[in-house]
């Protein structure tokens, strides 16, 4: 049984159908990438999974439980964390307070301390800036904070929306090596990316979204070699 399963999921914003009958699944331990043009509905799918957008039809299961009518906070408590587009760090609060708020749903103080320490080990720059307001960090640092904060809830799966958006190439490399490292430690990841080629290189499988529908799916390697995908999304 897949960890996350979308069965004919549709989402509408008013009269506009943003996502139409999407079938998608993510197995435990996989990194799966969702690519597609701007406005194809990639973010909407992530927002629907985490409960921010209301599902219009179809079934949405996480770890065998129906989560289609759950609030975002309840879904996070089940172990599904969403690192949103544009990072959305709490600009006025300190780096450390952002991280501690990431652990808001947890009660195990020792575990929180341990995970805070391992966040700082994974992202040494966050330790240097731990008392600074998060709004004063650079874009790359904010993205690292957003990922670290999502991990502080000790999730079983991570939704990552456009982690490379607006970052310098070197920083993008760094972000993707973090994704590899997380996956090597067993984290299941569903990734949405503009940078399709790079994302597919770091994924097991991929889905291509076109006007709210799945246009193609397959192993990441196959999609990278597929001439249609290449032309439409990889800019080759």
């Amino acid at each position: 049984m897949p960890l996350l399963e979308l069965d004919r999921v549709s989402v509408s914003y008013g009269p506009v159908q943003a996502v139409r009958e999407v079938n998608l699944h993510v197995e435990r331990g996989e990194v799966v990438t969702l690519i597609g043009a701007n406005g194809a509905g990639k973010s909407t799918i992530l927002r629907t999974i985490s409960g921010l957008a209301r599902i219009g039809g179809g079934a949405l299961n996480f770890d065998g439980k129906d989560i289609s009518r759950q609030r975002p906070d309840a879904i996070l408590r089940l172990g599904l964390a969403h690192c949103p587009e544009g990072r959305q760090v709490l600009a006025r609060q300190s780096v450390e307070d952002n991280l501690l708020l990431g652990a808001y749903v947890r009660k195990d103080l020792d575990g929180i301390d341990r995970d805070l320490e391992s966040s700082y080990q994974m992202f040494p720059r966050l330790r240097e800036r731990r008392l600074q307001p998060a709004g004063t960090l650079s874009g790359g640092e904010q993205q690292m904070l957003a990922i670290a904060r999502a991990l502080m809830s000790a999730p079983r799966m991570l939704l990552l929306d456009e982690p490379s958006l607006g970052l310098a190439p070197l920083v993008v490399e760094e972000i993707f090596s973090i994704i590899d490292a997380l996956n090597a430690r067993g984290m299941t990841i569903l990734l949405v990316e503009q940078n399709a080629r790079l994302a597919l290189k770091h994924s097991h499988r991929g889905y291509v979204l076109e006007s709210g529908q799945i246009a193609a799916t397959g192993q990441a390697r196959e999609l990278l070699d597929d001439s249609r995908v290449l032309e439409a999304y990889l800019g080759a």
Partner: protein
Amino acid sequence: MNIALFLQNILNGLSIGAVYSIFALGYTLVFSILGIINFAHGAVFTLGAYCTYALAVGDFGLNGLLAGLSMPFRLPFPLALLGGSLIAGITGVLVERLAFRPLRAKGADALLALVSSLGVALIIVNLLQMLVGAEIYSFPSDIFGSLPMAMIVKVGGKVLAVRTVQIIILAVSMVLLVLLAWFMNRTRMGKALQATAENPETASLLGINVDRYIVSTFFISGVLGGLAGTLIGASFGLAGPYFGVSYGLKGLAVIVLGGLGSIPGAVLGGVVIGLGEAFLPPDYSSLKEAVAFIMLFFILLARPQGLLGRQTIQKV
């Protein structure tokens, strides 16, 4: 101006300003989390004052449906103040349920809640009038037990009157401000509340139940409103069910002057306006109600975002 008169004005200004601050904090908390003004806040202020009066004094006057009735018990003033404020807090929660949540659940424009909260305000005020009439209620002089009404202090040969209610107001305000600052900056709940105020959607992704925090905010806001109403009532009496309206408007002036959504701004704004009113020369006392708005006008000319407001930066 002699030194005694100067000190008298400072004392009067600080004590009334402290009440304005407490009242305005109720506005500002809701504003910081929802981005809109709760127009029922003035009505909650009035209701809190009447409830404290009922609990402490126990009679309902000569008009209205409750005329001639009296409460079977009387509470000492501190307990009545607590009770009245709690009822005001619960009313705040009801205001959220009736005027704000249904619109939010339907995804309606946030501005519509201005109108629905104004509607709830009218209902509360008219219910009060129906129950206890439009007459003036005053707390009796022995309301603070054996404490005298005022102390006379001589400064440089001149007389300075320190009213007991002023001391109580200043003490209650100090305790409240320290508690609020501790709650907002030192507790997990306070930080979650700040996160909700900064970005409700992100807060929900962090596992924060945003609706529950909105309800808590309305409760705290209502308690602050009820406290302020009671303290004003104890100072100047309860001048009919509409007496909260002018304070409601003045409270708006306070938060705009201090900076919308800023907690220190609400405190500073209240004190500034309180002092401004106190230092108004007696010949111009008919302009007292206008002082807040005149100050607002000139301060906004210099600082459009208010004294401690953040300059809003539009992100592209």
